[in-house]
């Protein structure tokens, strides 16, 4: 085994833990590279021993037994959680392999969901089509050509019933990627559960519900920022009170990165948005420790391996420090930055698409070494179209190979203490802190106001566009290699079979929508909409019960959007390049 020189050991221990460690804990690394004498180690060991372990052999291919952790304090599960949120990490539970799926009609997607569960997927993740994401019905003029194309079409509760038909909502964890209309879709999910005898308190999962990044990057906004935030705090209050297993906001850097940001911008904008939700919820009267344990994050894993790992480690450390020091959280669980990761869709190339399998595997490995709680691996054909069943299975198998063949899940934070990894973690944190300082300044001491200001003055969109342009110029100039695109271009012309969404989907969906409207009790639907309109105008009322009432009356998503738009107004972006 290689012994680090003493000077390096000191440097790296200061790097990881300068706020946390005193000199006396930087004792020599013992023969097996674990500092067993420290108090921190004793605490870690107690926590580890209290954790249930999964049934697996924690040894190398040649039969060498490995320790659950190596290196120095603070250990995984210890503040500031740079090394992981749990003491035993993947020895207790592998990350959730959550594959994103959704296309065509609800029935089509239901079949894919069942296929994922049969193949060892452990959570569902729902992609909705553009009309649904924008709160419009399938028969809206804007929906033309988009129904069921890049996700599943949902107009009414009838579609949600089909989407989750014969899936036990009490036994599965469901993620739903939806933002502006999140309250409507959440209400539908609750109604499907209740109609199937699963009370809302037993429902587990995540709804993305992160509107701030929509204004910054993804652009699926409907209402202006402030009423949009009211909808989010309503849902946070509702789930905090009634749905203990639900994550009401998944603060998402994924789309910020896909829109072109750097890793450090992704980290900083995402955490700033997280702080903004905390400030908004506290302003809405919630106690920070009542909701913060249910906040979760969603990051991108791109191809620059060590930068990504540093980003994930820095995210945990920054979140813990800010929650403790700035927002006064007392509950340890409020300090934990738990996150889902998706490999970088934007890194996939249409040229030689099978090369994407290698990119995805590398990105998946970075996410796991970075300590993710859940992972979606992209399918290699996604630069061409939605994944086929075969390509989606290869993507899932990629995760299973990382999990079960490579041995990286045996040891928590296996790269912790490596000088380069610790330096990169510090560097990501330093860059993020500079951005927080800017937002704090333009928000007059409030990150929430700073984020509103940054949306208003184009700061976020401008920074992201600058980074995207810089990257593209570098690729164009050949200063940055993309294999198969600007170097090694020979071959790869084979035809890749892609998933085609039947053009008939739109007609099928419109017909179904018309049938639902025909068969519902129109008076009940109108009463429910009237209640929603009235309560939307009074910001002291939590709108969630009115949403649930409306969807149960088979009010359509588009009718709800129109009603709220009449009260809240519509957001229009100033187009800047």
């Amino acid at each position, binding site marked *: 085994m290689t012994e680090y020189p003493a000077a390096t050991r000191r440097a790296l221990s200061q790097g990881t833990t300068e706020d946390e460690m005193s000199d006396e804990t930087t004792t020599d690394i013992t023969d097996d590279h674990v500092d067993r004498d420290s108090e921190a180690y004793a605490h870690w060991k107690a926590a580890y021993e209290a954790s249930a372990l999964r049934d697996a052999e924690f040894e190398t291919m040649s039969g060498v037994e490995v320790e659950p952790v190596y290196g120095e304090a603070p250990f995984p599960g210890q503040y500031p959680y740079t090394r992981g949120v749990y003491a035993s990490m993947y020895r207790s539970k592998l990350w959730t392999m959550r594959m994103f799926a959704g296309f065509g009609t609800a029935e089509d997607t239901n079949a894919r969901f069942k296929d994922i569960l049969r193949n060892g997927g452990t959570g569902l993740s729902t992609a909705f089509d553009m009309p649904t994401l924008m709160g419009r019905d399938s028969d809206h003029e804007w929906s033309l050509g988009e129904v069921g194309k890049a996700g599943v079409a949902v107009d009414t509760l009838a579609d949600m019933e089909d989407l989750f038909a014969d899936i036990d909502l009490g036994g599965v964890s469901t993620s739903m990627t939806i933002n502006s209309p999140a309250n409507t879709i959440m209400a539908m999910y609750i109604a499907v559960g209740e109609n199937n005898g699963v009370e809302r308190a037993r429902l587990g999962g995540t709804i993305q519900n992160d509107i701030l990044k929509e204004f910054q990057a993804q652009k699926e906004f409907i209402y202006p920022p402030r009423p949009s935030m009211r909808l989010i705090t309503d849902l946070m209050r509702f789930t905090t009170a009634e749905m203990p297993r639900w994550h009401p906001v998944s603060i998402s850097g994924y789309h910020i990165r896909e829109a072109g940001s750097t890793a450090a911008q992704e980290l900083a904008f995402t955490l700033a948005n997280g702080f903004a939700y905390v400030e908004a919820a506290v302003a809405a009267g919630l106690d920070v420790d009542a909701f913060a344990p249910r906040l979760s994050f969603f990051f991108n894993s791109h191809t620059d391996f060590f930068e990504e790992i540093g980003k994930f480690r820095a995210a945990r450390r920054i979140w813990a420090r800010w929650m403790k020091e700035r927002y006064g959280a007392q509950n340890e669980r409020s300090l934990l930055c738990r996150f889902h990761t998706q490999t970088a869709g934007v890194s996939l190339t*249409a*040229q030689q698409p099978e090369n994407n399998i290698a990119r995805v595997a590398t990105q998946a490995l970075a996410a796991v070494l970075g300590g993710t709680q859940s992972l979606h691996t992209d399918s290699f054909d996604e630069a061409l179209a939605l994944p086929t069943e075969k390509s989606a299975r290869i993507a899932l198998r990629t995760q299973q190979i990382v999990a079960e063949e490579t041995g990286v899940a045996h040891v928590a934070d296996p790269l912790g203490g490596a000088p380069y990894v610790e330096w990169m973690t510090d560097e990501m944190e330093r860059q993020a802190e500079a951005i927080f300082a800017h937002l704090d300044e333009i928000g007059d001491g409030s990150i929430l106001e700073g984020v509103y200001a940054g949306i208003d003055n184009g700061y976020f969109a401008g920074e992201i566009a600058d980074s995207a342009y810089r990257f593209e110029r570098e690729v164009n100039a050949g200063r940055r290699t993309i294999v198969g695109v600007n170097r090694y271009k020979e071959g790869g012309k084979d035809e890749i079979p892609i998933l085609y969404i039947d053009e008939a989907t739109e007609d099928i969906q419109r017909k179904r929508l018309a049938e639902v409207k025909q068969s519902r009790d129109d008076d009940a639907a109108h009463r429910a909409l009237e209640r929603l309109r009235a309560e939307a105008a009074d910001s002291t009322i939590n709108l969630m019960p009115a949403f649930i009432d409306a969807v149960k009356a088979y009010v359509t998503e588009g009718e709800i959007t129109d009603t709220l738009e009449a009260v809240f107004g519509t957001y229009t972006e100033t187009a800047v390049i």
Partner: protein
Amino acid sequence: MNATDTESTALPTIEGDPPRVILAKLGLDGHDRGLKVVARMLRDSGVEVIYLGLRQTTDTVVAAAEQEDADAIGISMHNGGHMTLGPRMVDAVAAAGLEIPVIVGGIIPDQDIARLQDAGVAAVLGPGSSARDVIAAIQASTGEA
């Protein structure tokens, strides 16, 4: 660097009168990274870019093209709506009596490229297209190549 495309190491420059190009996204799709990058590349190459941004309709694009006396229209598609919206854009341009090319960029499966061209789309630019490709497509379709 060796083995890279030396011709793409710098942005191409436009000789003569710069073309005026309308860039827009139709429908609901909000993925505007590619279009913004193209807009900046064209602008930095000397093309006059009129960037309309998100959620445009064929009518708003045609109106802008008329008002700005545009030489070409570029629309960007990432959500599979291209087979509906691409031909519709071409028809709207023809219906307005304009004789300018419609160029489609974005995530377009290979087998749809010919279908779009049959429908009157002048050029289809997929992911990985360089600034040179984009400018060549505009020049070829506006007869200035």
